[in-house]
């Protein structure tokens, strides 16, 4: 049975960077950031492409975000997605995962979907909520933190990672939603001809009318606000050993001896 797979991708600021809080305190400064595909979404994308290669069908990469996300969608096309779709919601920060999940669900409802994949969490906002929200809104059975996916006879078997390395294996009927864990597979590199081709491929843009909405201001059962961002209060900070490498090594060795971890 050919599979229609929709994979949700997010472009995030590289979390290895340093961040400053923007004037007003409601967002980070974005003028100097560089963006990349969220880490676990890379695995979700790879899983989507592998599934459609194995079973036939199509893998569609879907995102919500400003124009800059087109670069990420082209990367997805070069790595094997058949189509790229951008929900043209231009808010650069999207702190309210509830709104994002609702908009993504509305878009997915307009697309054929046997399987919806997301990454397990975005490394910028770390909500681990988008996939579950979409599943709840669309009424799809779902599994989270998935490290292994096997589709057969209209069902999917998924291994879901728990704390402590245990895996809970679940069997779900399609259509279903899975949130894919970091490390679930080995993502491929895009071959150069595919990168060249992806640069010319169209990206489908969805505005509010395409989702059946008069505007992006959808009714929500709650009000949401960012009260403020701040640098986290240091819980306590390590006693730092300074100096040259030799001085640091000398002090570290002394501490290990004093605490009795080294005999001599």
């Amino acid at each position: 049975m050919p599979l229609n797979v929709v994979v949700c991708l997010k472009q995030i600021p590289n979390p290895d960077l340093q961040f400053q809080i923007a004037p007003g305190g409601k967002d980070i400064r974005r003028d100097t950031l560089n963006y990349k595909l969220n880490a676990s979404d890379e695995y979700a994308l790879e899983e989507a492409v592998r599934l459609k290669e194995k079973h036939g069908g199509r893998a569609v990469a879907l995102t919500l975000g400003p124009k800059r996300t087109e670069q990420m969608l082209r990367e997805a096309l070069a790595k094997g997605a058949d189509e790229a779709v951008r929900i043209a919601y231009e808010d650069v920060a999207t702190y309210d995962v509830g709104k994002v999940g609702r908009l993504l669900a509305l878009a997915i409802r307009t697309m054929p979907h046997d399987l919806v994949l997301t990454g397990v969490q975005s490394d910028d906002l770390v909500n681990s909520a988008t996939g579950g929200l979409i599943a709840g809104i669309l009424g799809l059975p779902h599994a989270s933190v998935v490290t292994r996916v096997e589709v057969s006879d209209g069902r999917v078997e998924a291994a879901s990672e728990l704390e402590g390395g245990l895996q809970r294996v679940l069997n779900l009927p399609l259509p279903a939603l899975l949130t894919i864990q970091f490390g679930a597979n080995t993502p491929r590199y895009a071959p150069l001809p595919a990168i060249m081709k992806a640069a010319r491929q169209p990206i489908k843009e969805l505005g509010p009318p395409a989702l059946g909405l008069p505007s992006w201001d959808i009714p929500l059962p709650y009000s949401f606000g960012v009260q403020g961002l701040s640098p986290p209060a240091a819980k306590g900070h390590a006693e730092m050993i300074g100096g040259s490498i030799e001085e640091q090594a000398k002090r570290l060795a002394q501490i290990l001896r004093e605490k009795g971890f080294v005999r001599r």
Partner: protein
Amino acid sequence: MRTIGSDILLVAEHLEGRLAPSTAELVAIGRNLATQTVGATKAALLGHAARGLAEALARFGVDVVLVEDPALAEYTGDGYREAVRALVEQTKPRLVLLAHTSQGYDLAPALAGSLDLALVTNCVGVRLDGDRLVATRRLLNEKVQADIELSSERPIVATVRPGSVPPAAEGASGSVTSVDLAPDAAKMRMKFVRLERPEVADIDLSGSDVIVSAGRGIQKRENLALVEGFAKAVGGVVGASRPLTDLEWLPKTRQVGQSGKTVRPKLYIACGISGAMQHVAGMKDAGLIIAINTDPSAPIFEVAHIGVVADVLKLLPATLKELKE
């Protein structure tokens, strides 16, 4: 008109007959919040033949609502969502609290999505401020803290990161009330198949007094030898952060963190590990934590007792030399 009351409903988590440690933390948070709402805290415990577990939970001093059904013998998103949904519709709590665990963040968003409720996840703190819920979250590799405010006429669903508060103490006593809520069989679409355990053909990290863990900062697989040599010198074994076990430089059994082992050695040396929440959750209770990292703003220095801003590939050989003198 308000459609909610003032109670806090927390969802207990258990596996193989044991309560998750995070559930006692939820009890502590719920009790604290309930004093503000002038409501009660209730804990939902779902399972099959789970009376004993419900009584164990009540000993943390919380009233337990016990829902028993064969369909709830093992966790599935379908079974738990339907049961909690029915409880939420019946009791209309102000807040539904879950732990931000693999199970908690499977259930919480699906519950919020299916009932059209407000959701905030992975909080390190939650408080009530008048009509609003203020949730504190950590973003961007722990480098930014955000206070988020939500208000709603309907229940709000929130997940709290394990380890954010001290757990409630045992010794008090709460009631256990059985509620008959057979989940609708037509909505039980998913099947539990089995639990799988990682193969253990390796040393057991959790039994070691000294762990020297390697992270991305060691740069190349060959450099593991250096970490192994250092571990030997301090009588320890080698652990790793997730990126290294994903790269298969070390077996999965060596991974310290939320999806790996939780360890409490006397000495933990983090070599080139930035200290993402995922990792810190598994080692923050070690007796002495020494962190070595080139980035002075790395979050690992927040949990470490002793920090060294240095290239681990230079510092370890230099320290070994010192130890041999």
